[in-house]
């Protein structure tokens, strides 16, 4: 429950503060969103599985965001930024879907 509130607080902070995202950071924002969602869904699923581990969650969250950003950065430098962004979105998207399905099985038993 508390983490849910923390997520909500984060969202509200982001909306209220409405910080101007510098132009060079803009390409990373969608990727960061997908990576963050992946970590959050993974964490929730692990918690429901009874496997949650604080260290794994924090490290996977930070590394997910950083690695995703790094891949996009490298892709931009190599001229394949769009394709690598797609790759990141596909891989993380599959994981998000898989975890969401596992969460659904836990919650609805279906």
């Amino acid at each position, binding site marked *: 429950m508390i983490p849910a509130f923390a*997520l909500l607080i984060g969202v509200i902070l982001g909306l209220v503060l*409405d910080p101007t995202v510098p132009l060079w950071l803009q390409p990373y924002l969608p990727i960061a969103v997908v990576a963050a969602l992946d970590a*959050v869904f993974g964490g929730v*699923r692990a918690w429901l599985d*009874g*496997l949650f*581990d604080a260290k794994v969650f*924090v490290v996977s969250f930070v590394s997910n965001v950083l690695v995703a950003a790094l891949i996009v950065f490298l892709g931009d430098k190599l001229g394949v930024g769009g394709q690598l962004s797609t790759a990141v979105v596909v891989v993380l998207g*599959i994981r998000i879907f898989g975890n969401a399905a596992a969460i659904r099985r836990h919650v609805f038993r279906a």
Partner: protein
Amino acid sequence: MSTHRATSGPQPAGMITALLEQTLDPAYAEAAQRRDTGPADHRWNARAVLAAVVVAGLILGVAYADTRAAAPSSERTRLALVAEVQRETALGADLQQRLEELRAEVSLALDDALTATRDGRAQAERVSTLEYASGVLAVSGPGLRVTVSDAPPEETLDPVTGEPIDAVPEAGLVLDIDLQAVVNGLWAAGAEAIAVGGQRLSSTTSIRTAGEAILVDFRPVTSPYVVEAIGGEQLVSRFAGSDTAARYDAYRQLYGIGFDLVSADTLDLPAAADTDLRFAGPVAREQPGETK
């Protein structure tokens, strides 16, 4: 893919199946195993988790705010264009007003000049009759106000986005031919001067559709379309009893379009906008200047 894996073990295809099947980070399972066997690691407590979750939420919120801020740039351009169109339309209306004033002055001066001679008086009479008939001069008098409007919007699904929107059903849209029919009906009922949406009709005025807008004399008019006609006493009763009125009354009941007749004691119709002098002949040949 599964048969391939069954025969050859964790080969390249295994990477994809692992991706599809093992959606939970394996690190969780390993950490759980470590917890079972070794001492618990207390350095990563709930506070770090909360901080990470807040940051995750922050990313979502910022991304939302950023996307929302970026999207309206096209909308802003559109609004700026709309404002410019409105400004220029207002300027055009001002100029039109000025033109009408000047035209009235010219007409008065013409009358003065003509009425100075006996011969001129007949000419003046003729000129002013023609001017009223052709829409060069603003007129006022008793008449009929016909209001035609689109049917009230109904909730439907947007064909492009699939989102529910309020839209006028196609059968309830007033088209240019509807306005043409009403105007023709009014002429037939004996109207002497007609204006649609405040645009006086002259003999060359067009009523036509451009895209989704109806243009009268190349100026857009929108629903409700007010058609004002000045005519004799018979106008109201003759139009109300006409086929056109009967037909649109039926459309009103069938499709829900607005069709409303109100007789008015005084209607003020402006002069027509586009009345260029196209043809003129010398007075001596009994063919006075004709304006269109």
